[in-house]
């Protein structure tokens, strides 16, 4: 099927494709740059999407192999494109805003799997052209050796990214629990060495079977599972960001394999930008990447606080008391956490905010860098329910204001307001920057129960005299508050 036959010569077609790839590469760089500023972000995303589209169709119609052969199986390629677009579009459009992080993880996993499959097919191709003797081919020359190494690299990274992303997706969906095997670190390191060792021995021709690649693929998948399994659910965003950069690297290996610059540039860009983003995220939580990856945060750390946990009684209030506190306050700061997102209460909280403002109360939102499940996630959720952007105050700016705040309303947040991060050096969250809620005159904490937060540690804030606990589902309680406030007029 030579669709562009006649219009341009074969050489011209390939040259046009190179120009298309150049434009696509530019759109990726430009798009990523524009994504870094709120004003240009949306356009940046569309520009990159445009670049991707022309690269895809350019490849389909203009690509030729060394022998000048165009691609065939176009019906399957288009079938795959249509099917993938339909599923991707529907899933992406339907997903709730709260489930965005796991959605990103899911799509990332798909990219990883795609990279791994490419390696697998290329390997089959190589084996079938080697007349049953891959070693002889490898020994012949450097090019096959290089290609084989790249295939393995793409396969291993892609498989780890796929399996890891799916586990991360499951964890954020609440379908998979944190699980630490005894001697997990030793198993993981051993498994990793085995993967690299087997791949290397196949590439170098020391250990040869044609099925080696599939064995390595299987082990890499297992490694991906074991790698993410013990990491606490609260750290999933960091893991997803890391796996995201893994997939970028896997894509770059694909570009190396096909001598394809747009794949190379897109892949390396994401690999490097993603790695930096991962580190920035860790910094926001004041933890090192290594600590996230092997710290087993939230998994086994809960045991420490049993004996010396905060003691005392908790003051529970009902919505009616809470609404009176709010109504007669001059200044209220709302601290939204993941509990608010889970309860889908972002619209009700906006209603409450408007109601209080109409009573002359000054209302602001305090946004912790990791509020929600990812940096910026809470801003997205609140923006969705039309909360004024200027009311969302970042941590550094709001912290000095708590001293002049009458009532702080903490909704489904826990670890980000735990004073232990400042005072208790034995606490797993020690050193994490927190919102200084305890400086306010009164605090209302809306929470489902006295259960510990994601980090698995007690919060002494709840036991303070100034703290009022409002137990219940965030949405129900906020709706009750709104009803109380309305009935008071």
């Amino acid at each position: 099927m030579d669709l562009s036959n006649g219009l341009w010569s074969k050489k011209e077609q390939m040259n046009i494709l190179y120009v298309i790839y150049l434009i696509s590469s530019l759109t990726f760089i430009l798009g990523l740059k524009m994504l870094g500023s709120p004003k240009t972000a949306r356009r940046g995303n569309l520009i990159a999407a445009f670049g991707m589209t022309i690269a895809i169709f350019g490849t389909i119609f203009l690509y030729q192999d060394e022998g000048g052969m165009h691609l065939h199986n176009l019906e399957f390629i288009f079938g795959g494109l249509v099917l993938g677009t339909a599923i991707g579009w529907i899933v992406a459009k339907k997903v709730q805003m709260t489930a965005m992080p796991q959605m990103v993880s899911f799509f990332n996993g798909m990219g990883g799997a795609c990279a791994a499959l490419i390696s697998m097919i290329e390997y089959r191709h190589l084996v079938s052209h080697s007349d049953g003797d891959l070693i002889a081919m490898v020994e012949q020359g450097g090019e096959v050796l290089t290609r084989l190494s790249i295939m393995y690299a793409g396969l291993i990274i892609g498989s780890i990214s796929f399996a890891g992303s799916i586990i991360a997706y499951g964890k954020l969906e609440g379908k998979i629990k944190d699980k630490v095997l005894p001697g997990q670190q030793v198993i993981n390191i051993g498994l990793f060495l085995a993967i690299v060792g087997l791949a290397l021995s196949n590439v170098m021709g020391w250990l040869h079977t044609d099925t080696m690649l599939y064995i390595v693929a299987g082990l890499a998948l297992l490694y991906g599972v074991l790698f993410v399994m013990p990491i606490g659910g609260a750290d999933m965003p960091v893991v997803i960001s890391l796996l995201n950069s893994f997939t970028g690297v896997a894509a770059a290996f694909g570009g190396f394999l096909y001598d394809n610059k747009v794949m190379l540039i897109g892949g390396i860009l994401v690999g490097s930008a993603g790695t930096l983003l991962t580190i920035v995220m860790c910094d926001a939580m004041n933890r090192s990447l290594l600590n996230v990856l092997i710290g087993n945060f939230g998994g086994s750390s809960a045991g420490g606080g049993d004996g010396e946990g905060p003691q005392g009684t908790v003051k529970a209030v009902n919505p009616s008391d809470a609404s009176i506190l709010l109504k007669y306050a001059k200044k209220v700061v709302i601290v939204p956490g993941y509990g608010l997102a889970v309860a889908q209460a972002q619209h009700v909280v906006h209603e409450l905010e408007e109601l209080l403002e109409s009573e002359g109360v000054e209302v602001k939102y305090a946004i912790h860098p990791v509020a929600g499940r990812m940096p910026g996630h809470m801003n997205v959720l609140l923006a969705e329910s039309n909360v004024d952007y200027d009311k969302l105050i970042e941590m550094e700016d709001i912290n000095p204001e708590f001293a002049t705040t009458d009532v702080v309303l903490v909704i489904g947040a826990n670890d980000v307001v735990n004073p232990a991060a400042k005072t208790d050096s034995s606490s797993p969250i020690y050193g994490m920057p927190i919102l200084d809620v305890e400086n306010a005159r009164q605090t209302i904490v809306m929470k489902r129960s006295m259960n510990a937060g994601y980090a698995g540690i007690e919060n002494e804030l709840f036991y303070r005299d100034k703290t009022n606990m409002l137990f219940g589902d965030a949405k129900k309680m906020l709706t009750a508050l709104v009803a109380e406030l309305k009935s008071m007029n």
Partner: protein
Amino acid sequence: MIDFIANNQNFIYLLILMIFVGIELISHVPSVLHTPLMSGANAIHGVVIIGSIIVMGQAEETISLILGFIAVVLGTLNVVGGFVVTDRMLEMFKKRK
């Protein structure tokens, strides 16, 4: 090793430059945009789909065809899902006055 570097100069230069470009692009980004940024980057590495299209377009035997087809579908999911999800997130930011 030296042969390898000499033979792949273009790639190695590209690799080094792109690593720095990537780092430069991400630094100084407000944390508010981290989630959309991660999601946008996620869509961009969907460029791996180009590889799956090439491998599919050259496949001959049945198993390669099947694997290639799956690869194209998964790659498309990454691209389309990635860009659409990012756009939905950023749409939220746009609404503010």
